[in-house]
């Protein structure tokens, strides 16, 4: 366990090295490597089907990569001897379509992780869950079931659910792309304040406003590899790769500035 690695740089909370993943003949990830420092927000963009979701799922092992390694701090997630459930508990995951537990109220959705995974007593977990719901501005919806909430509210509950585990790292897979335009803002606001509070976040999103103003670094993925990575100022004003340029202009056309 706790494998040391020559390229290890201090302070990296997440390290991904040489990740490969195929589904049948479909070679989706073709050697993805990246690092994140604690407190950083990194945004991943790239065309559809390029493996962005697969990358996030390989990081917390919801999909098992064929090759390559992933570290959370100094623990190797890809090491078979590591208890994956313990590691996953430290990595929040926010899904495009929320995936709230449909049979549980908002409160119970947020509470269930701390109770089942961390063994918190119900009273303590309730208190914690109410705090997290307050953090995403949904204290008054604690007793509502997912079907009674708007998409934006559901996504905020799902963020609260992830936060209740006090994760070291949050993964967001297109958290706003299933939302009506007028509901995107409320979710982005929550994410912006999380970033400001120093949460480490890896975000797949084509919300360029968010990427520009909040991220420390932007990754452009295409064809299963990272084509280009850089801080937003450089990335938007002087992309090195022609492909990045083409993609950015398409995105601006689609989503506006």
């Amino acid at each position, binding site marked *: 366990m706790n494998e040391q690695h020559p390229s290890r740089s201090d302070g990296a909370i997440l390290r991904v090295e040489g990740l490969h993943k195929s589904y049948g003949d479909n070679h989706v990830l073709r050697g993805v490597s990246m690092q994140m420092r604690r407190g950083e927000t990194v945004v991943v963009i790239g065309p559809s089907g390029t493996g962005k979701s697969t990358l996030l799922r390989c990081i917390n092992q919801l999909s098992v990569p064929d090759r390559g390694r992933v570290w959370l701090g100094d623990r190797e997630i890809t090491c078979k001897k590591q208890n994956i459930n313990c*590691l996953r508990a430290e990595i929040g995951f926010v899904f495009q379509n929320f995936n709230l537990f449909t049979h549980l109220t908002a409160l119970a959705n947020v509470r269930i992780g701390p109770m089942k995974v961390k063994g918190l007593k119900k009273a303590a977990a309730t208190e914690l869950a109410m705090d997290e719901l307050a953090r995403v501005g949904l204290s008054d919806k604690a007793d509502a079931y997912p079907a009674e909430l708007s998409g934006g509210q559901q996504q905020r509950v799902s963020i609260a659910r992830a936060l209740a585990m006090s994760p070291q790292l949050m993964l967001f897979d297109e958290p706003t792309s299933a939302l009506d335009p007028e509901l995107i803002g409320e979710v982005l606001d929550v994410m912006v304040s999380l970033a400001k509070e120093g949460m480490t976040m890896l975000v797949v999103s084509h919300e360029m406003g968010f990427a520009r103003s909040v991220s420390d670094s932007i990754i452009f993925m295409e064809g299963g590899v990272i084509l280009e990575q850089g801080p937003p100022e450089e990335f938007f004003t002087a992309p090195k790769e022609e492909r990045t340029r083409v993609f950015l202009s398409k995105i601006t056309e689609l989503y506006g500035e």
Partner: protein
Amino acid sequence: MSTIWQSLELLVTKGLPTTVLLTLGLLGAGLALGFPIAFLQVYGYRPFRWLCRGYEQLFRGIPALVLILIFHSGLARSFGILLPAFTSALIALGLRSSAYQSQIFRGAIQSVPQGQMMAARALGMSKLQAIRSIILPQALRLSIPPWTNEFSSVLKDTSLASAIGVLELTKQGTLIFTRIQFVKGVNYILVILILVALVYLVLTYMGNAGLALLERRLRIPGFEMKGKVER
């Protein structure tokens, strides 16, 4: 008239209890076996899946009456194992119901969206924890309507146990009419059979009403059909 009342009393006191007991036993046995079979079929390792599939195909493919005869006369004649008639019926119909119930639960488990399991695992729950606290409660709710169907057919299948002499409603009915069929020159066969049928009807109705109540008690917003047509 008094003959009818006496017959009804006899049916209710000396036939109904066995029918109810057998029905409950069958549903219970079917549930106890059907649920694990369903979970093994969905989440189990491959050999388990094949095994469960074989089991389910076998017991769904044999007529109920044949199964009852196998577990009674068949076992007795070939192996000298003479089970009490009630036990034979319980085993034969119980195995059969477990096969049907496993398919109800399998369908329910599989109609819980994949994302639910994914979200549970992403929180750090083990597969077993996720099944128990996320998949199971949802699958159980989804199972109630089709399970109501299974209840109705199991209840009525218990009448087949009369073939091996279990003294339940149908058997009691036939005993009554063979004894009194020509009282006062009236043919009572049809009358008694109608009485028997009525008792089944009332039982089915009450059972269904109870399950509908349960379904309503457990109802959760979002679990009813979405986009209901209101007129």
